[in-house]
Structures are given as C-alpha cells and as structure tokens.
C-alpha cells in the first residue's frame, strides 16, 4: 500500500468528521442567543479572562519530558540492533542511562518535579 495509505486515511478521517458535523448542521436549527455564547461556568457570568495564569509546574514537567523523549528516540535504533552488538551495547546503554539519571536527579533536587 505504501504512503498512499496515509493520504487515504487522512481523507477518510476528514470525510468522517466533516460528514458528521455537516449532517448534524443539516438536521438542526440554530437560533442565536447571547446567553448561549457565554463560557460555561455553572450558570453565573464568568469573572475575569478565561485565559488565566496556570501552574508553572506544567512547564517544568514539559522541559524534563523533552530530555527523556530525546533519549527515547536514541533508544529505538539501539534496541533493534542490541542483540547483534552484544556486551558493548549493554555497557554503552548503562553509561547513557547513568548520565541521564544524574540529570534526572539534578532536576529532582532542584525541585522541578515537586508540585507546589
């Protein structure tokens, strides 16, 4: 099938979603009302902007995630050929994980993984 499969499925997904949404637009009648357009907040008008400040912790987790995600990308090709290389691969990966773990411990010590 090849790469064509990706195009077919993308088009299929768009057709499926658009079909559903358009069909529902065809069946329903929309009457505008200013109350309908308000953000949902348990019945009372919302106070302040909804795009408010959120916790810095999310950002720190995202940074630490990036560190490990890049490491994972390195691991995929390594995992495929580890049996052919043998003991050398084990030593290298051990060193790699130790270095990585030091970075992880540093982040932990700095309190990046603490939720306050």
């Amino acid at each position, binding site marked *: 099938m090849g790469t064509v499969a990706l195009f077919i499925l993308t088009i299929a*997904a768009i057709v499926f979603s658009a079909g559903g949404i358009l069909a*529902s637009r065809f069946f329903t009648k929309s009457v505008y009302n200013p109350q309908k357009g308000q953000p949902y907040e348990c019945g009372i008008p919302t106070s302040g902007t909804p795009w408010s400040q959120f916790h810095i912790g999310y950002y720190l987790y995202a940074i630490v995630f990036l560190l490990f995600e890049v490491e994972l990308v390195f691991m995929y090709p390594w995992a*495929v050929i580890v049996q052919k290389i043998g003991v050398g691969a084990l030593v290298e990966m051990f060193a790699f994980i130790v270095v990585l773990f030091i970075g992880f411990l540093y982040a932990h010590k700095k309190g990046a993984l603490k939720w306050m």
Partner: protein
Amino acid sequence: MLNTISFEAIKTAVQQWLNMHWGPHLAFIAECILIGLLVIVFFAVLGLLLVFMERKVSAVMQIRLGPNRVGPKGWLQTSADTLKLMLKEGLTPDGADKFLFNLAPFLIMIAAMLIMVPIAFARNFQIWDINIGVLYISSIASISVIAILMAGWSSNNKYALLGAMRSGAQIISYELSAGVAVITMVMLTQSLSIQDIILSQQNGWWIFKGHIPAIIAFIIFMIAATAETNRAPFDLAEAESELTAGFHTEYSGMKFALFFLAEYINVFIVCAVAAILFFGGWMPFHIGNWEGFNHIMDYIPSSIWFLGKTFCLIFLIMWFRWTFPRLRIDQLLNLEWKYLLPISLANLLLMTIIVVLKWYL
C-alpha cells in the same frame, strides 16, 4: 478449508476480482476507496460497540442492569445516543478562537485514524506494514496531545484550559514509561515492524518467554496506557466533580461525539498494541510440542485471536475504572516520575542483560 473464510482470503479474492474486471489503475483507486470506507465503518461500529460495552461492564460491576430498553437487550442504545447527538446544536462560544475550536475535532480524528495504518487485524490483513511500525504508532499518538491542548485553549473556558493542561502533562509524562516498555520488547523482537513482531512470537508469546522483565514491562505499559487514554483512575483531565468535562466542556453535538469516539478508539489502539507486543497479536496460543492442542488452536481464525485479546485488555482497563479511586494531580505525576520511570529504566537494563546473554528461549 481452513482459509476459506479468513480476512486474508477475502482480501485476495477482492483484489483478484478488481484486477480481473478493471484495469490496474482503476483497481488501485477502487481499493483505496474500499479501504477508506472500511476504516470509516470500522470506526463507527467500534465506537458504538465500545460505548455499549463500557456501559454494560460498569452496570455489571455495580450490580445493576445497564441499558436494556432500546433494541434487544439494549443493543441499540448507543445508536440512539448517536442519533440524539446528531440532532443537537453544535455551539461555538462567542469568545472562542473559532478556527482552532473547529479544527481540534478533525485533528483528533485524523490522529486516531492514522494509527490504524500498521495494526494487523488478522494474518496478512494490514493496511501497510511500515518497517518502523511501533515508533510510528507512538509518534502519531503524540499528535492527539496537540489536538487536546488546541481544544482546551481555544474554548475560552477556565475548566477547558485547566483540563487540557492536566491532560497534556499527564499524556506526555506517561508516554515516557510506555515508550520504555515498548523498547524493552523491541530488544527481543529485533524489529519495529508489526508483522515481524508478531511472527517472532510463533513459538510462544513474549509475555511467557520474555521472563520477568516482559511481565514488568506489560504492567508498566498497561498503567501508562490507562493514563495516556485519560481513563480512570487517571481521568483528572475530565474529573467531573471539579472540571465538569475537561478540555471538551464547550463542545456539543457532533464535535463532542467526535472527541468521545476518539477517546474510545484510542483505548482500542493501546490495547491492540499491548496485544501485539505481549500476546502475539493474531498468533494462536500454542503449548510447546503438544501437536493436538496446537492444531485445535490453529482452527480458530486469526482475527478472532486478535480481537479476543484486544477486548480482554479493554475489559481490564474498564475494570480499573471501577476498582481504583481517582488520583490527585501531584500523586499522578509523582507516580510516573518517581516510581514508574526509574523502574522501567531499571527493567530496560535487566532486559538488556537477558538479551545480551541470550537467556530467553
């Protein structure tokens, strides 16, 4: 006689018929359209089936009847729900970023559908056997995070924004240990292609011949899969009592239905990946050299094996929901970063030792 009703035989017959009656180009186009239609139908049926299964399983867990009025034994309940959702008005809030708000459901459906490409449903029944199959699945699965953040951010709603942030943090965190668990298994299979992974389990599934690291990897993968699909006990992103519905609070009608569908499709996909990696996908269950038993197992069609394993795992995930209480966000992130990730890295090293010393079968 055995292969007359398998998916593979149907596929070959359709291909032959198309090539015989039409030219090769026309046959190819027809095949593309058939695949598209097949996937759309599969999605709709799977969505209806999984929602129904969820409701029935939770009913059984709580000793009640569950849906039983619409159709025989309530089988048409989810179809009626879909019809109802279709008749609901699709609202866009006034303050919302209209473009992103409407784009997000499409993106989440595209991500869910693209993951279907390398999954093998039966023997030789696969859309495209990509040589980086497992990596492809994990990379496409990350796209759904973007769709969730997009939906939460563009909704112009505090609940939606907080839900999306929680969901994003949770999905990216648990992606790591899921990835490490997958890599642990890739070391044994020596290939990322789904076809090769399944064929490498001909004489026993990896959960049996992969020793203890494979079992640990399976447990970690299932925990991470539950968290990645935002299901209880990790369903903080849509904790009803605090955030109404999380990132899709403002969505209504069909757009909401698409998010709901994508959620269940993702559950199916992670369970299918777990079934492929640990339980041999469509490989029948064999016991060593016991020929008679193996022969009987071979008579069960491969599609039944695959779907059976996948639905058992889905049942397991639904069971989790009614067994464990919901975690708090800091407990959730602690569980991943302080326990699961170090354990899965240590497990990876253990598996490397086993693989390098050739201790597996």
